[in-house]
C-alpha cells in the first residue's frame, strides 16, 4: 500500500491499482501481444477469472516502486526495442497517473507469438 500525504488527509494506493494501470499501459504498447502468468498458480487462477492485473508484479519498499512485467511479444519485431518502449510506457503512465516515482521496470519476455511466417 502506498501512501500519498496531502493537507486534506491521506491517499492510499494499493498494489492492485498500480498493477492495473501497468497492465493496461503494457497492452497498449506496440509489440506486446499479451501478458503471461508469472507463475503456475496465477495461470490456474487466470483460467477461472479474468484478472486485470495478470502478468504484473508490483513491489513497494516504502520509498520506491518496482514493477515486473511478464509479456508475450509478437515474433518478427525487434524485441529489445519493444521491451524498452513497454518499460518507458509503463513508467510514464504509472508516474503520471499516481504521482509516485517508479524506480525500476523489469521486463520479462515470457514468450513470442507467431502470427505469420515470413
Amino acid at each position, binding site marked *: 500500500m502506498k501512501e500519498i500525504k496531502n493537507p486534506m488527509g491521506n491517499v492510499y494506493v494499493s498494489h492492485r491499482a498500480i498493477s492495473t494501470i501497468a497492465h493496461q499501459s503494457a*497492452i*497498449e*504498447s*506496440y*509489440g*506486446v*501481444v*499479451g501478458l503471461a502468468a508469472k507463475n503456475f498458480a496465477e495461470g490456474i487462477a487466470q483460467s477461472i477469472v479474468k484478472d486485470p492485473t495478470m502478468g504484473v508484479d508490483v513491489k513497494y519498499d516504502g520509498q520506491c516502486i518496482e514493477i515486473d512485467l511478464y509479456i508475450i511479444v*509478437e515474433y*518478427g*519485431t*525487434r524485441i529489445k*526495442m*519493444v521491451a524498452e*518502449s513497454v518499460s518507458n510506457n509503463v513508467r510514464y503512465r504509472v508516474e503520471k497517473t499516481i504521482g509516485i516515482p517508479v524506480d525500476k521496470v523489469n521486463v520479462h519476455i515470457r514468450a513470442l507469438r507467431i*502470427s*505469420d511466417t*515470413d
Partner: protein
Amino acid sequence: MNQEVKTITSVDGQLFKQLIEAGLNWLRTNQQLVNSLNVFPVPDGDTGTNMLLTMQAAYNEIQNSGEKKVSKIAHAIAQGALMGARGNSGVILSQIWRGFSRALDNIDSMSVIDFSNALSEAKTTAYKGVVRPVEGTILTVAKDVSSASAEIIKETDDLEKFLEYIVNAADVSVQNTPELLPILKQAGVVDSGGKGFFFILEGFLKFLRGESLETATAKLVQPIALMNGDDMEEIEPGQDYEVIVDFRPTNPLNLDNFYADLTEMGTSIQVGEGDGMYRMHIHVPTENRYLPIDYTMKLGTITKVYMENLIDQMEQKEADQQKQLNLIPVEPGQIAVVVVSPGFGLSQIFASLGAAAIVQGGQTMNPSTEEILHSFENLPTDKIIILPNNKNIFLASKSAKEATVKHVEILPSKTIPQGLSAMLRLDPFGEIDEIFEEMKEAITEVDTGEITVATRSVEINGVNVKEGEAIALFNSELIASTPSIESACFEILKRVDMNERERLTLFYGSDITKQEVNLIIDHIREKYPQFEIEIHEGGQPHYQFIIAIE
C-alpha cells in the same frame, strides 16, 4: 511545357529501390520537423531520428543490390528495417515493411493493385503487433492509406495518380490524429510517427514527379578501410589532398606501370583489388589533385571518387585540441567530482572549479548509464560525488552508482547553477559525507533561471505558450512565455527576492550571439543597478540563457 509523359504502371525491384531512397531522403530533409512534434515545450523528441535510422538500415540492405524482382527488394527492406528498428515508431515501421513484403511474395514487378494489397497486408501486420491499438498514431495513418489505395485502384493503374491519392489520404489522416488522441490535441500537434510515414510516401511521389528532395542524391560513402580515425598521419609537404578512386579497368592492369605513373603525382600510394575492381589511394599536392582522376579515367571506368582536403582537416583537429579541458588530476583517496554539463563553456567553468571528470549531457541529450559508469571507473579514487545538474539524469546516475563498487554520492542538483554553487564547497581532502552534506546545502542557496524557445504552442501551469516565443523557467518551473528573450529575462528577475540575492551570473548558449547578449545585459544593468552581474559563454544548446542568482 508539353512533354510527352510516360505513364508508369508497375514497379520493379530497381524502381522500388529508388522510391525507398527518395522516401528516406525526404524523411531526412524533414527529420527535425518530425522530431519537433513532441508533447512538451522543451525540445527532446526523437521520433524523426528513430524513423530515419530505421529507414536507413532498411535502405542499406538494398543500396548496392541490382535485383530486378520487387519481392526480393521488399524482403531485404523488411529485414533491414527489423534489424535496425529504433524506438517505438521504428518497430511499427519495421512491421509495416514486413507485412508489405509478405504480400509481394513471388511478384517480380508490382502493379498498383499489388501495391494496394501490400499496403493492406502492411496495415494488418502492423495492427497485429499490439493488443490494444492506440488510434491517432502511425497505425491509423497506415490503415487510412490502405483503404484509400483500395479505392483508387478501381479508377487508375497509373502509379503517379495512385501515389498522389494515397499521399493525400495520408495527409488528411495525419491532420486528423489530434481528434483521435487527446494528448496530441492538448499539445496542439499531429502525431509524429504518422507524419514521418507521410513523408516517406510523399518522398515516393516527389521522386516520380522528379521534384527536389533537397538533399544530394549522390552520396559519398566513406571508404572505411582507408579511414583510420584517430591516428592521423603527419602531413608532409606535397600531401595537401587525399584522393581515393574506385575504378574498373578496361584492360588488365599492369600494376608496376600503374605504381610508377602514380609515384610521379604524389605519395602514400595504396592500391587494393577485389572482384575486378580497384581502389587507388594517394596523397597529392593541391595543384595535382585532379591528375590521379584523369589518369585512372584513361585506364577504365571510374565508379567512385573521394577527395579530402587534409590541410583543412588538420587545422580542424588542431582547433579541436585547443578546446581540450584542463581537468584537475585526482589522487587515490581524494574526493573526485563528476559533472554532467551540456556545453563546452560550462564544462570549462566546472573544470576550473575542480571537477575531475565531465560527462556531456543535458535536457535534450541525456548521457547513458554506461557513459557515467565509465567516468566513475576511470577515476583513480573510490570516493566520488556526481552532479547530474538535471532531473532527467538522476536515474542514469543512480543506475551507474548501483553498478560500481566505488563509494558514489549523487548530489540532487537539478540545474547548472545548483551544480556550480555546490562545486564551491568542494574540498577534495575532506570526509566525503561531510562534503556531500555541505554541497547539498549549497544547492538551496541559489535560484536558477532558464530561457529557451518553445517548439510549439501549449498551455502548462496556466501559462499560455506560443510556438517561437521565449519561455522563462524559474527553478525549473515554467513561469512565462514572452515574445522576446529579453522580456523573458525580466520575467525571471521579477521573481527574485531582492533582499536575499545580490549576484547574477549569466551563461549564454550556442543559439544566441554575443551581440544580442550584450544588448540584453545592458538593459538589465540599467534596470537592476543593485546586482553584480557576470557573463560567461556556456555553450549549451537550446537554452539561450542559464542564470544563476545568488
